[in-house]
């Protein structure tokens, strides 16, 4: 039944987006903290490290996802043993999403008032206290907002991954809608994607607003 196929596609999309966004969150936040604190005048100042990290982030962010996905095929095979299916899509999705999210989180961290860092130093905070008790909590609403954007971008990219055989809603829309001119399925997929994105955006905005005490 095509309804089962659609549900399976939705699950696949959610799996791809869920896993890759989770990894992006876990790696991206520390990366953003490192980008901010290792910068000139930062609490863990290390200009060389900062430059290298910045260059890596820029490199991955400047490659269009479709090309990145193809270029990463050997690496993907190495990691998950296949270049086909949901798990094969997770690898390039994660690698694209992590630097993207790290940059957005970095902006939020940089916006934390320097006066707060100074106050924390004056009260006898160690440097990791400043990261944990000042930088992260103060930047949290912005980081949540950034994560929402990352999720939406990932849904976008996952559809592209679907087109080269990763499964998910993008795959269904491509095969039925484009190759077989089944506009009914195409339309259903579009409605599902719009609803999914709207839901994520709404949830993210609510959460960010609730966390913002300014």
């Amino acid at each position, binding site marked *: 039944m095509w309804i089962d196929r659609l549900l399976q596609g939705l699950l696949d999309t959610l799996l791809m987006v869920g896993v890759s966004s989770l990894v992006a969150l876990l790696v991206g936040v520390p990366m953003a903290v490192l980008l901010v604190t290792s*910068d000139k*005048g930062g609490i863990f100042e290390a200009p060389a490290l900062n430059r290298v990290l910045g260059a890596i982030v820029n490199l991955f962010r400047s490659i269009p996802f479709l090309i990145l996905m193809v270029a990463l095929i050997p690496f993907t095979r190495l990691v998950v043993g296949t270049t086909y299916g949901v798990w094969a899509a997770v690898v390039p999705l994660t690698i694209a999403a992590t630097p993207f999210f790290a940059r957005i989180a970095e902006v939020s961290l940089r916006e934390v008032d320097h*006066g*707060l860092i*100074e*106050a924390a130093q*004056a*009260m*006898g*905070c160690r440097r990791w206290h400043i990261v944990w008790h000042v930088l992260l909590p103060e930047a949290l609403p912005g980081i949540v907002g950034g994560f929402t954007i990352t999720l939406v971008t990932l849904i976008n990219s996952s559809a592209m991954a679907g087109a080269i055989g990763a499964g998910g809603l993008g795959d269904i829309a491509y095969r039925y809608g484009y190759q077989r001119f089944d506009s009914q399925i195409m339309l259903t997929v579009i409605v599902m994607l719009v609803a999914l994105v709207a839901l994520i955006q709404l949830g993210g905005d609510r959460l960010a607003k609730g966390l913002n005490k300014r």
Partner: protein
Amino acid sequence: MAQASALRAPVPPAEPFKAEETALRPEVNQAHIRFIGLGKTYPGQGQPALQGIDLNIRRGEIFGIIGRSGAGKSSLLRTINRLEQPSQGRVLIDQVDIAPFDEDRLVALRRRIGMIFQHFNLMSAKTVWQNVELPLKVAGVAKAERQRKVRELLELVGLAEKHQVYPAQLSGGQKQRVGIARALVHDPEILLCDEATSALDPETTASILELLRDINRRLGLTVVLITHEMAVIRDICQRVVVLERGEIVEQGEVWQVFGAPRHDITRTLLAPLQTKLPAALQASLRAQPVSRDAAVVLRLDLVGEPELSTLFNDLGGRVRLLQGGVETIGEQALGQLILSVRGSSLDTHQLLERARRWAADVEVLGHVD
């Protein structure tokens, strides 16, 4: 983020310092905070931010540092808890040079020194309670003790019922009270105030200054404050230094500096507090006497309470009081009089000389017909 790097900036080689030797000298023993030949130059700037600062701040006093913006006040204050790293010279706290401190000792030192800020610098994502608790939390103080201490301090600053509120919902004065509670939570021996009342309205300023004076009296801690407002110095400080272009241009007891300012900068800073001539009279003032019986207008700064009849007799002629007042600064009465003297047998120069016997400072404001 320049200060942030102070934590791990390379420590300049400290001159050998012998605590035993200085401890024998009583005048050094008095100093709680001591600056010796302190200088600070920021990289890429020719003009040093601070130079040749020699200063003793006594235990338990309220010490003021005043100057115009950019005079170096902020840098000087921040060398006390090493948020700022001096380029030359030393800072001694209780006779101990703080320059060679590693992170552990620096953190311990900073817990003995509270600091409050112009813009309060409260964590927006934390409640009032959590803000005050934070210094204890990072120091690993047990929960029961933290609760006792935070409650005690919120009581002290009069914000006990606001403990669950976020800083954004507080007024400026309340935010500064939270800042004060946070600064005192480790029972510090020194409190640094960085323009603590500059963002507040006059009424709130008065209440915050009252609180600071109260804390100073009750807890006996040394308060060092910087400000560009002479009124703040007048209201709570015992001693003051005037900074200009990174150098001390004047220092002493507040009543002395107010009663007889010696430097132009001090006079400029004092100007807003000075007795002003009524506008109508100001307009009719002439630089030179127009007629033979023109009156001389004098401004006298008096220290103490001189007998005015004798003063008036001494000046000769008909003396009129145009404007005047007396203030008490640090238990010392400081008066300011604006007089017109008409028909005196003395010329302007002689009048000035005569007035100087009575006043710490005299100025001829002009002449009126």
